């Protein structure tokens, strides 16, 4: 089995409302000097083969209109 990690993030240039909300909360918590916060997600999975991972990402895990993804093979 392949252990893979898919990193999905909002495309550059699209307003990331979650990231903005997190960023907006930081000063009140005493965190200074942090900016450009963007929130994505990580999907970890095991697959028999890496052949169709790209397709899986395009069809389900990410929406290519609004998100970029990277597939990282962690171990084989």
């Amino acid at each position: 089995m392949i252990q893979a990690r898919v990193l999905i993030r909002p495309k550059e240039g699209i307003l990331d409302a979650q990231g903005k909300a997190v960023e907006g909360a930081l000063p009140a918590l005493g965190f200074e000097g942090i900016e450009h916060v963007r929130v994505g997600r990580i999907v970890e999975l095991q697959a028999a083969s890496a052949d169709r991972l790209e397709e899986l990402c395009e069809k389900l895990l990410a929406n290519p209109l609004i998100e970029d993804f990277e597939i990282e093979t962690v171990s084989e």
Partner: protein
Amino acid sequence: MKWGVLQFPGSCDERDALNACQIAGGGVNESRLVWHEETDLSGLEGIVVPGGFSYGDYLRAGAIARFSPAMTAVAEFAAAGGPVLGICNGFQVLCESGLLPGALLTNERTRFICRQGELVVGEADSPFLAGLEAGQRISIPFKHQSGRFFAPPDLLEEIEAKNQVAFRYAPGQNPNGSLNDIAGVTNEAGNVLGLMPHPEHAVEAFGGSTDGLALFRGPAPAAGAAA
């Protein structure tokens, strides 16, 4: 007119939609719910993909519902010219499945919105807009958290050029940061229409507006061709 209203695990507006279908049909109850595992839409003349949180909206709103057996049948129904109306989560599902252009993102200010608002009818040529005129205002509830319509610049231009905008938020009422104030779009053929606000919640006088009925009445004269 015989409507099928889809029901996914996590749908929550399907009964209001069914009620709207019945009222639009003059009180005749010939519509029914369609469970997400059903694939036989024969006899149905229109489909509503209702609001709610299909499959918990895990991953992205509408992302998983798109793969349900019923949605495969809906795609065939739409390809044959059958009228398909997606409301809120239903709009998200139709965008995720590629039946409508664009995507819906979390509202600009991340908050869940729930209030009555006004829409302006667009130029789109769709059976759902048969009883409405371009430029006309209708008042129906806005009720969503992921309703920010987005399309990359080239796609947005195409949607506008092909007159696929069905509804825009009235000036000053865009609640979520949608591009070009877009609240609803159609496919190129016009038989598939999706919108974030809720026409099915504006069909009885006690709610303050019955403007939503027009969408459910619109397709009736042309119905019966599909499926």
